[in-house]
């Protein structure tokens, strides 16, 4: 068979990769075989460019030896962490950027569905959803369309399946115009002894395909959409999958009931590259082979070819691996829930995949080469523009003539900072009745029924910082996630990450990828939180421009006493307010690097952000200890918009005024709106001041008094004096004003 360039382009394989396949098989592949290689060797499934870099996470032993981690990263569908009491939390974040760019509602909805099935494949009940969204600025009607579609899709799918959507973040920047980022995270709870595996290791076991019928939707989703740059969007529409949340809900219950019988030996979800990747990965991790008969696959369209059945990405399907004598019991469970269930294959000892359609054999491949995509280690190099952007002279940033009040009001109304309530009130964040702290605070807190414990979860990213300094940006994103968890009183336990980047084949982007990963790995080492799961989304480019390098990190924290959970809002009137951490009476230009202030007010994305990760660790410790000892009553991470914005948010969310008395230099913009890292705003009773001060100084953490709470105004001595209603209005209506 003479394969054409056009055929190779369709499955996103290079000519060299094709030659490698021919060499390994010692013959030309059949069309079905080539399709299987294309899917499994895609960037999305095979991690061709990222795998060598992801090993950087594992290089240092200290992040991997956490005795709480119950899964090996990458070996199963999600990471599992022991939280004591015989329970484990399972979690993972995944991207659905490209499908959401093509069809935002279905793209985002099926992104939620996909990550939920990853959690289900660990044998866990999904207990929380989070999402991190990025769009181009909302003055462009196309971006507004994408925004409404994505939010609508998450709302539609998540609400129907009865899993609360408890936290998230939304960011708008020109960099994501036409290439939105839709990263969905799911958290599950399972008895530690009942964690399921995807590895099919028993010869003779039967493969049961359960759930939705297989249709023509999503063919080439992995190779076509997720593994190439994104220019010809109109033509790609048929490759977006269509979701059925009702079926997902029923599938969750049916699979959990089936797993509860103890008769399921392995379970795997059908995600990217559909049946091909589910079946091959399952037997590859069990060091077995498989016989598949595609004529047994229940189809929802007529006359589907073997190629289409193998590569369909129809949603709401799972693969269960069951001993022959237990098949009828599992079928009974599926029948109760009206979920279709068919025997489509068998696990065999020889490590080969033989795929037939009835009597005709359509693929006969060794498992090894299929499961081992080629790996590329490239040379990264920052571009000159990247280096230039890092230079920022304070003298070149004029002090705004408008004054601090006007700047504060403008920043509060910026869509990146403004209240996201108009979005999260569309998501059910309470179902399952565990939500102690819901969306809108630094982290969400969920109590664990049957124990005194709670888990805290959050998700965060900062593309601007990573663009300006990929290594520092990588450090900062992990630091901020852990800071958010610490602000709720929780001890950070583990991370999951989704690496959203442009084409790794460009040296400057490869450099970003490598440096961000190094930064994430180093921060994880210092803060003692391993990365236990993740996903990579490359080729995020549109209209010739790559997105900002945007690693999104999801964090899991644990608190022994759920009733101690703190919120970001001031805890009442007459309290003292202090800043814990890197105190900024003498700021410098790095405080403004990549700040919302610099972008919104000066139209600049410049500078080189910095973090002292060792100080960060101590600041978080002080915050958690202060909360645990009952001293700190509220805590809020000082991040987007800087100190004045953080204080405003504490005031607005509590409805309690603030009287600030702290030194502000001539460059009030540095003090009020600089985004220096490692700072937390806390409120507490005046009587706790001495105890808190000695706690902080024992940890070598600076702390200064900022002011007191009370009254109806928001004041910072000599700078700002506004009624709470005025700062609330801007913050509450900022997003709605631009989404129309």
């Amino acid at each position, binding site marked *: 068979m003479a394969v054409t360039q056009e055929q190779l382009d369709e499955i996103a394989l290079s000519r060299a990769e094709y030659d490698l396949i021919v060499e390994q098989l010692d013959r030309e592949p059949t069309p079905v075989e080539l399709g299987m290689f294309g899917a499994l060797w895609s960037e999305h499934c095979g991690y061709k460019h990222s795998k060598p870099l992801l090993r950087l996470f594992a290089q240092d032993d200290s992040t991997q030896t956490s005795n709480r981690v119950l899964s090996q990263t990458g070996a199963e569908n999600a990471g599992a962490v022991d939280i004591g009491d015989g329970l484990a939390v399972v979690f993972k974040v995944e991207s659905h950027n490209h499908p959401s760019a093509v069809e935002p509602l279905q793209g985002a909805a099926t992104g939620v569905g996909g990550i939920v099935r990853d959690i289900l494949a660990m044998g866990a009940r999904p207990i929380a959803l989070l999402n991190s969204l990025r769009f181009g600025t909302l003055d462009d009607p196309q971006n507004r369309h994408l925004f409404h579609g994505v939010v609508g899709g998450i709302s539609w799918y998540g*609400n129907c399946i009865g899993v609360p959507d408890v936290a998230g973040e939304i960011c708008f920047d020109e960099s994501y115009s036409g290439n939105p980022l839709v990263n969905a995270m799911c958290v599950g709870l399972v008895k530690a002894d009942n964690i399921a595996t995807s590895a099919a290791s028993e010869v003779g076991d039967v493969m049961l395909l359960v759930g939705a019928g297989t249709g023509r939707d999503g063919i080439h989703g992995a190779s076509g959409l997720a593994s190439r740059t994104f220019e010809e969007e109109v033509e790609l529409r048929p490759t977006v999958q269509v979701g059925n*949340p009702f079926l997902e*809900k029923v599938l969750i219950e049916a699979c959990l009931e089936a797993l509860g019988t103890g008769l399921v030996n392995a379970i795997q979800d059908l995600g990217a590259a559909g049946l091909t990747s589910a079946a091959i990965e399952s037997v590859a991790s069990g060091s077995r082979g498989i016989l598949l008969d595609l004529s047994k696959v229940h189809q929802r369209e007529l006359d589907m070819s073997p190629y289409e059945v193998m590569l369909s990405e129809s949603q709401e399907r799972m693969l269960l691996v069951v001993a022959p004598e237990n098949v009828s019991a599992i079928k009974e469970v599926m029948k109760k829930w009206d979920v279709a269930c068919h025997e489509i294959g068998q696990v065999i000892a020889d490590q080969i995949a033989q795929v037939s359609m009835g009597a005709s054999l359509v693929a006969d491949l060794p498992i090894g080469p299929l499961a081992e995509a080629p790996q590329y280690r490239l040379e990264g190099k920052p571009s000159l523009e990247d280096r230039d952007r890092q230079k920022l002279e304070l003298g070149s940033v004029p002090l705004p003539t408008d004054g601090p009040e006007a700047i504060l009001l403008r920043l509060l109304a910026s869509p990146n900072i403004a209240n996201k309530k108009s979005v999260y009130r569309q998501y059910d964040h309470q179902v399952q*009745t565990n939500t102690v702290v819901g969306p809108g605070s630094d982290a969400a807190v969920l109590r664990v029924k049957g124990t005194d414990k709670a888990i805290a979860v959050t998700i965060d990213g900062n593309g601007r910082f990573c663009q300006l300094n990929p290594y520092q940006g990588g450090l900062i994103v992990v630091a901020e996630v852990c800071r958010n968890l610490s602000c709720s009183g929780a001890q950070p336990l583990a991370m999951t990450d989704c690496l959203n980047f442009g084409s790794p084949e460009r040296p400057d982007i490869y450099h970003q990828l490598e440096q961000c990963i190094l930064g994430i790995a180093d921060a994880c080492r210092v803060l003692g939180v391993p990365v236990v799961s993740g996903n990579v989304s490359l080729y995020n480019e549109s209209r010739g421009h790559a997105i900002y390098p945007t690693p999104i990190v999801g964090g899991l924290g644990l608190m022994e006493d759920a009733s101690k959970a703190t919120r970001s809002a001031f805890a009442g009137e007459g309290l003292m307010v202090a800043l814990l951490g890197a105190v900024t009476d003498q700021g410098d230009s790095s405080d403004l690097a990549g700040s919302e202030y610099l972008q919104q007010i000066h139209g600049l994305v410049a500078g080189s952000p910095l973090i002292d990760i060792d100080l960060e660790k101590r600041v978080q410790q002080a915050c958690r200890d202060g909360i645990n000892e009952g001293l700190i009553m509220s805590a809020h991470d000082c991040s987007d918009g800087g100190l004045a914005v953080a204080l405003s948010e504490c005031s607005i969310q509590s409805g309690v005024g603030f009287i600030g008395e702290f030194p502000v230099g001539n460059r009030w913009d540095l003090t009020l709106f600089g985004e220096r890292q490692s700072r937390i705003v806390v409120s507490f009773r005046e009587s706790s001041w001495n105890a808190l001060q000695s706690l902080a100084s024992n940890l070598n953490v600076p702390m200064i008094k900022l002011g007191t709470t009370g009254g109806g105004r928001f004041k910072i001595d000599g700078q700002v004096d506004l009624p709470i209603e005025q700062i609330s209005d801007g913050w509450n209506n900022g997003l709605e004003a631009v989404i129309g």
Partner: protein
Amino acid sequence: MRFGILVFPGTWSDKDCYYQVKDILGQDADYVWHDETSLDGFDSVILPGGFSYGDYLRPGAMARFSPVMEALDKFVTTGRAAIGICNGFQILCESGLLPGALLPNKDLEYRCQPTYLRTERSDTLFTTVCSQGQLLNVPVSHGEGNYFADGETLIKLEEEGRVIFRYSDASGKATPESNPNGSANNIAGIINESGNVLGMMPHPERSCEMILGSTDGNLIFESIIESCRRS
């Protein structure tokens, strides 16, 4: 007493209701799968929230044909209490056990938010432990909770005192701003003519512990328990 909690494919508040009546209020409770044909042995029945059959046609339009709904018809003729929450309310309206319909929210968006419910009567099966006018802090979470009935039915409901809960503000006033979905007359919950079937959009099972923000939802189930004890 013993609660039966109906479970349709797509129901999701079943476990929350079970937790409330069993673990918080210490009552017996059992799940009842939608194809059961008898509700014998239960003192009260809960139709929980969720998206039965995905709500694909209309919320509740498919579930009303489940076999258990015939059993429910018989069950309520005995005077025992049935409460439909959210999707349960929608199913009760579709099945004709309660009048009216739940339309899409006026903003055409899903709403998950806290609401205050003003207790309009304290002499029903569902409110005996509440006081007249008591405000209950109970959240809503739905896309189609905009209560609608024709003018004549609304007048009848009001005249017969069958509006049990009304959305109101923190001071107890039923204002347009406190109405999360556009419901006629700020209606959040109604009972049938015999007074033993309640349908309400808000979720009392979510207000069952202080750590979740409110325990006001317990009052409705405590009322059912108290009414059952007295009878």
